[in-house]
């Protein structure tokens, strides 16, 4: 964590999915899954992205990874805009950016051995002439990676079904590490795991970050997990970021009314604290992201809404506390 320059810079990222568009049918509108997201991550930092289902956090990560072609915006990794790259350059750039997925059961090919799964990224880059490594070196690296993520190298020839959930997630992490990336995009990597295994994997992420100087963009829906793993936390709601703050400050001093509601809804494993807590219970569900609104996206459910919020959309602005927050309670509309 020595050099604090920016590794990833995301500007005005939008991802709109057309509904019901086909060869014959007309486009019946869009799902505005991500609707203008800005953030940056420094080298060696962990940015946590938190929000409820449908808030666009996974889509954001996939658009950053260029698994989807973003509708608009820039994704600048190490000074280069990924959205404007030719396919071959993009492939080369992927070496610096790898993903870990949520479901350790579905994201590993059941017909490949653990060793093959971990070796595959290297094999692909070898084939394209992007990685100069001999097959022996590759095998050594697979074994090395397995030990690094806490798996015995003797498990190399086993298939995914022979591993437990936590061990499979270790395989997924080793696969992501194979190309020695600088940025890891982690899409709910611990959500499917049991409590006792979750803490093991969280610790593994921290250890690897220290050892390899990794930078994480880390998604979770569990606020405690996000707070633990992240340096800064971005809270998303309905396709936009409503607040970014230092993780230590988030629970103590949430600013955006949505962040406040989210934090107060999160259960705390201590009956004494739970007995005294006053919850902000939001009414209703998250609205469907199928229309763009002129005002604040949280307007319908906000307990502190004002008239201006209905017509004017707040932008992320830095406050005195050092948070970035998109809410007119903290800065006047222009």
């Amino acid at each position: 964590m020595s050099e604090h320059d920016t590794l990833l810079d995301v500007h005005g990222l939008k991802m709109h999915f057309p509904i019901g568009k086909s060869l014959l049918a007309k486009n019946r509108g869009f799902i505005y899954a991500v609707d203008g997201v800005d953030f940056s991550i420094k080298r060696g930092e962990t940015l946590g992205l938190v929000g409820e289902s449908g808030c666009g956090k996974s889509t954001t990560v996939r658009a950053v990874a260029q698994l989807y072609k973003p509708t608009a915006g820039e994704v600048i990794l190490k000074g280069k805009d990924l959205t404007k790259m030719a396919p071959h350059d993009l492939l080369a750039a992927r070496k610096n950016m790898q993903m870990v997925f949520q479901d350790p059961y579905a994201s590993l090919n059941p017909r490949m051995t653990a060793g093959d799964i971990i070796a595959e990224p290297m094999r692909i880059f070898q084939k394209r002439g992007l990685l100069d490594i001999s097959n022996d070196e590759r095998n050594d690296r697979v074994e090395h990676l397995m030990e690094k993520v806490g798996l015995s190298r003797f498990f190399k020839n086993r298939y995914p079904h022979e591993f437990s959930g936590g061990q499979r997630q270790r395989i997924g992490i080793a696969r992501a590490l194979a190309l020695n990336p600088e940025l890891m995009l982690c899409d709910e990597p611990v959500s499917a795991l049991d409590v006792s295994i979750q803490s093991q994997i969280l610790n593994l992420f921290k250890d690897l970050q220290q050892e390899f100087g990794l930078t994480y963009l880390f998604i979770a829906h569990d606020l405690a997990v996000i707070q633990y793993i992240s340096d800064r936390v971005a809270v998303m709601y309905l396709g936009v970021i409503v607040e970014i703050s230092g993780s230590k400050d988030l629970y103590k001093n949430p600013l955006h009314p949505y962040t406040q509601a989210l934090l107060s809804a999160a259960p705390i494993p201590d009956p004494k604290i739970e007995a005294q807590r006053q919850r902000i219970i939001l009414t209703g569900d998250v609205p469907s992201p199928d229309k763009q609104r002129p005002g604040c996206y949280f307007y319908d459910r906000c307990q502190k809404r004002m008239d201006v919020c209905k017509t004017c959309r707040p932008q992320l602005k830095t406050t005195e506390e050092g948070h970035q927050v998109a809410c007119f309670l903290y800065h006047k509309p222009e």
Partner: protein
Amino acid sequence: MTDEVILQVRDLKTYFTVDEGVVKAVDGVSFDLHKGETLGIVGESGSGKSVTNLSIINMIPNPPGKIVGGQVLFSGKDLLKIPASELRHIRGNKISMIFQDPMTSLNPFLKISTQMIETIVLHQGLDKKAAKEKAIEMLKLAGIPAPEKRIDQYPHQFSGGMRQRVMIAMGLSCNPEILIADEPTSALDVTIQAQILELMQELTKRLGTAVILITHSLGVVAGMCDTLCVMYAGRIVERGKTDDIFEDPKHPYTQGLIRSVPRLDKENADRLYSIPGQPPNVIDLPDCCPFYPRCEKAKDICKKKYPPVTGFENGRAVSCWLYAEETK
């Protein structure tokens, strides 16, 4: 909560026969449920918490599963011994269940009205019209806006949180004595989870229903439950008042579990505590403490024999050799 015990589970054993051997999914579980009490059962996947509750109303799919022993005493009868017709009269009526995934737990092909009315007609002997009124009233209690209209819709027209409200309304429609909620909020978002838990708490308190809440989330039990059973590998390793257990967990597994959850309200250490090792393979478990390979306080005896239950004050009971006398 009163002292009146309404459900007694005694030495319940449910085994599953699979190709690899016998899975002792539930292996000697005992607990009491008091009138109006909310009892939490926590454990990780495969600990047997869901199987325990399906066993209570004798709904274990057979084959491969079989309840091989124990008793479930409810209103003076053993639910494992009574004829099927009598048991059906208790299911959904005296003891009802709601399940984890509200998206798949309602029949997608039938209207909400059909699904709610059939239960009320079956157990309360009302005619269809009266049953529908009752159903609408329950939906209203469960916080569904415009229930007169919504009742004639299909499940896919409801959001996840709304479907769980429907499940709760349906579960409570016959005013049961016990509501078994199997991970009722695990599939829901945190703000919706808060809504649903509050609703469950409010309604069951109002109706005087006792609740068995199955969950993996320590946060949820901390806020909801009077008493707690911690399960590991098919057995209850610790039980007692929720406050007592969080204050002073006695079993090393409970201790580890509580310590390994990151805390939102506190500064976390740079590294989280974590229980080493993997969850046990529950096939053909030997008669030892299944936690000993992961236990920091394991002794010789732990590898040889399953620990007996040691009782403490205030109804606390722990199965661990740290507290039990080794007898030859």
